[in-house]
């Protein structure tokens, strides 16, 4: 198992390198002089030259690339052009909120999606199946900001069960959970949709497999046949989908944070865009890319847990 983990981590290095290179190039091939974009077209050439030096843009591209890579390796994302604060500190301050939100959504998605998909497949074309199909269709077709606003109107404005603005500056864990609830449900519904679909179709296939017939021939109660024999095999595609859509989830987390006015990477991205803070934007791209690469490694490691064939392969 340790060798498997080491191998996966080693394999992630080239991916990381490629992603970082792409981010580096992306910021630099965008048309327009960044100093004009930051300072405006009325800025004096001297001021622009000064900014250019501060950003290191006067150096040759290869040198810039080398410095960029060394900085990242040291965990340094540079300084914001607007506030001049270290970007890594800004990110570190809000990252826990985004992680909290994403994990909560993942939790809701798996906890509702997997059982819903299993029961839907077991009673194909029955009431639960019908419900599952509606839920997953709704979850897939509502954009996160629309469903977020609808949730806010229903549960925060009308019913007043949850706060409208998800302030999180509280030490009371219950309050914090209450603030997390609606955004997590909003994001979780999308995950429920994906997970239900994959679980349902996976179960429909698994239930007609030979090994399920063997399990029945053994005289196992259908509870064990379904939840132990069939579902264990379906977990493989389910984990794939969860891992694959973790990227989508992070994107939707950004939208959700904006709708619910929650601190997090989302708000940081919006302010970076509004203030044309290129350095901050680059830093955020790096962080997001790292998060997705990390999520993929986690997915691969989870495979090792759910599928014995992966370890030896």
């Amino acid at each position: 198992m340790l060798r498997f983990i080491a191998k996966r981590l080693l394999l992630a290095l080239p991916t990381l390198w490629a992603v970082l290179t792409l981010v580096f190039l992306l910021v630099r091939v965008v048309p327009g002089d960044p100093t004009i974009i930051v300072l405006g077209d009325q800025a004096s050439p001297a001021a622009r030259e000064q900014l250019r030096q501060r950003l290191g843009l006067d150096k040759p591209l290869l040198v810039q690339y080398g410095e960029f890579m060394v900085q990242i390796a040291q965990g340094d994302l540079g300084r914001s052009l607007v506030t001049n604060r270290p970007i890594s500190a800004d990110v570190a301050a809000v990252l826990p909120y985004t992680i909290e939100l994403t994990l909560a959504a993942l939790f809701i998605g798996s906890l509702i999606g997997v059982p819903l998909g299993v029961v839907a497949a077991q009673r194909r074309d029955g009431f639960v199946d019908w419900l599952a199909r509606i839920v997953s269709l709704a979850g897939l077709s509502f954009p996160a900001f629309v469903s977020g606003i609808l949730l806010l109107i229903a549960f925060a404005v009308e019913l007043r069960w949850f706060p409208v603005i998800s302030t999180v500056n509280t030490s009371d864990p219950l309050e914090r959970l209450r603030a997390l609830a609606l955004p997590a449900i909003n994001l979780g519904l999308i995950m429920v949709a994906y997970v239900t679909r994959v679980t349902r179709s996976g179960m429909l296939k698994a239930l007609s497999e030979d090994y399920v017939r063997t399990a029945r021939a053994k005289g196992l109660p259908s509870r064990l046949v379904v939840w132990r024999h069939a579902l264990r095999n379906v977990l493989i595609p389910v984990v794939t989908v969860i891992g694959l859509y973790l990227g989508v989830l992070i994107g939707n987390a950004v939208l959700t944070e904006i709708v619910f006015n929650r601190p997090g990477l989302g708000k940081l991205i919006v302010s970076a865009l509004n203030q044309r803070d290129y350095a901050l934007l680059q830093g955020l791209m790096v962080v997001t890319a790292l998060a997705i690469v990390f999520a993929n490694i986690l997915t691969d490691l989870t495979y090792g847990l759910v599928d014995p064939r992966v370890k030896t392969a």
Partner: protein
Amino acid sequence: MSALAAVAVVESPSSEPAAIAVDGLTTSIRIAGNWYDAVRDVSFTVSRRETLALVGESGCGKSLTALSVMGLLPAGVGRISSGRIVVDGVDMTAATEAGRQAMRGDRIGMIFQEPMTSLNPVLPVGFQIAEALIEHRGMNRRAAQKRALELMELVRIPAAGQRLDAYPHQFSGGMRQRVMIAIALACSPKVLIADEPTTALDVTIQAQVLALLADLQAREGLAVLLITHNLGVVASVADRVMVMYGGDVVESGPVKAFFRRPTHPYSEALLAAMPRVDRPSEALAPIPGQVPTLPDMPSGCRYQSRCPLRIEKCAERPPLNPLPGAPEHRVRCWVRAP
């Protein structure tokens, strides 16, 4: 078939009560919303230590017969329309699903054709063998694992101790089929149903698995219902044989009598279509035509559309009649056994 005739067929040749007694079984399957009889009025018995081979080509109803006995017909697609199945004294057709479940894996074991797909790929083989013991014998995991190890040794899996926690993908096809046999025999059942147990295996492995089955049968006194399309397998391991065509039993009898005198035109054709070392291979005679699909099945004798001996009376369904002088050898044919 009258009640009296049915009883006569169920009657086992030995005095011991039959381990499997199937009487007038009709199993229907649903095709495009209509139900068709895929197994028609099938009756047989298998005693302990006896092997009955069920022979026929794909779709003749032999696997459906086995699944009916197990109570494993796919819900909504297959159902038992009439008849009675008694296994080890328990009426499976009258039992509740819970009752049938208690029988499966405990008093009836079953092995399937595809050892590559019949084992769960994500569970260790030792646990897959132990499961039935935990379920039916109330054993704890440790005791069941210990028994699983004994079973793996019984089916002669080399280095069983180290392979208890191995997964199916680490086994060859023959070894997986041995694991399947260990699963089927875990609770020492009285009855073993083997559905094409060697079809997917190499010829040498096939012989090993058949020898193992014969050995275990003698040791445990099993009643074996062997489903196969391989007449060579029938000749080497079966005591009695039953040939099915289109859901009908067309011929049944002791193996020696059957091979000495295959009487139904279909049995004759089957044997003529089998390659043999003592005959030039050009002499292979394929059976002309195809098995009609269930919706197109003719009334009366189901083989009539391909039969060279067809007469007008074949439009009526012939009874399964004993041959003169051989009461155990029965044939369903107006021409050969009027």
